[in-house]
């Protein structure tokens, strides 16, 4: 819809601004709520920054895994277009540096958060309980950003709320037919579930990482079916299932397990208390 805004002679892409604004808002709210899980504001901020780094790294790694086979398959055609070495290297870098996968970002965020908690002996389970609430919020903002950019578009659709995207030179097939607004549907579902998790966080004593399990259960089911409404076939697939559907099937039992058993106690990463020795007997000290 509106992939970029014009400021003078520069076009600023809206996707990044929208996503980062949502992320900043979520981090701010999380620092305000950290005391409910006995986390200091500073630790919440540092953990959030580590998680953000994990989002960037994880989403990029999974994107590369899904994209490299295509680049290898069409390598000869790429060499035809770019016979000189430097333009070819530049093309490869710009091609590989674009694109991100949500599930990779989620897994990366959890791994990097684990790394932070392990390094500095902070309660990982408390972090998970706090951050799980905001995952659907940030993701919902991201899906709105997708709608603005025109990426992750839906299947051809002629019913109510069908969207006619304006012509974009980058995605010519986007405007050929009216599309189902799958980005907005997913954003709406995410915001609703954000409300659900918020209520569970404030009104119940569900902890021990189970909020993450509840989120995973909701999202893997939702994503599995939302994938059927996606029209961008270039997002990667294995057989008749898309990459995200396969990841959903892998995460489903993990989510169920977390709900049933919670996360292991050792993930609290508590600093062990030093044993205080009994006071020395009279006459035995210096």
């Amino acid at each position, binding site marked *: 819809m509106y992939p970029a805004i014009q400021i003078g002679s*520069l*076009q*600023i*892409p809206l*996707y990044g601004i929208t996503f980062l604004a949502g992320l900043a808002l979520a981090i701010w709210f999380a620092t305000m709520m950290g005391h409910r899980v006995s986390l200091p504001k500073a630790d919440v901020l540092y953990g959030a920054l580590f998680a953000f780094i994990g989002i960037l790294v994880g989403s990029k790694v999974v994107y590369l895994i899904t994209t490299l086979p*295509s680049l290898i398959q*069409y390598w000869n*055609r790429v060499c035809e*277009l770019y016979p000189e070495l430097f333009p070819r290297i530049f093309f490869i870098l710009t091609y590989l540096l674009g694109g*991100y996968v949500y599930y990779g970002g989620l897994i990366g965020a959890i791994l990097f958060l684990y790394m932070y908690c392990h390094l500095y002996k902070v309660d990982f389970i408390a972090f998970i309980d706090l951050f799980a609430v905001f995952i659907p919020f940030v993701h919902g903002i991201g899906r709105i950003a997708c709608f603005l950019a025109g990426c992750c578009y839906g299947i051809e659709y002629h019913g109510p709320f069908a969207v006619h995207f304006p012509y974009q030179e980058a995605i010519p097939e986007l405007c050929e037919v009216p599309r189902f607004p799958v980005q907005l549907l997913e954003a709406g579902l995410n915001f609703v579930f954000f409300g659900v998790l918020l209520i569970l966080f404030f009104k119940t004593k569900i902890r021990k990482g189970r909020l993450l399990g509840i989120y995973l259960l909701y999202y893997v089911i939702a994503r599995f079916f939302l994938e059927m409404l996606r029209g961008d076939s270039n997002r990667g697939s294995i057989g008749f299932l898309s990459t995200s559907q396969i990841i959903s099937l892998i995460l489903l039992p993990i989510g169920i397990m977390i709900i049933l058993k919670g996360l292991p106690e050792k993930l609290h990463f508590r600093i062990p208390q030093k044993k205080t020795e009994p006071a020395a007997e009279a006459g035995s000290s210096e």
Partner: protein
Amino acid sequence: MEQNNGGSPIGLLLGILSLIISIIGGITFGVIGAAIALVLGIAAIAISINTKKATGGQQGTGGMVCGILGIVFGAIFAIGCTVCGASVASATGGATSGGTWAGCVGVRCFAEKTVNDLNDAYGDEIQDAIDNIDWSQFNEN
């Protein structure tokens, strides 16, 4: 107890580099500059957090702030143009997709260069085909 952590100047240096490269590199070279800024910003933040933990929050703020800003600008320039990569798909006949280009903010519009390359590669063939059409077959008798 405060400690003089040697990571503070390193984190600050990396953060400043990240910030400068994200703005200048993002504007002039698009995604390449933005990607370099992202890597430097990530390193700056990691080192600054370690410094803050080691010094009880006394040091490391400058590196953290610069690193965050470098990542923000880099992410804006790098993430935003995901859709432009589809131009590669049409340029290469569906060979590739999903790339981010230097085009949205960068002076060097690689997407445009791709189209120009296509014209250079196949433009003559197309022009030859047009020139060789026997227009007489369309004349009405």
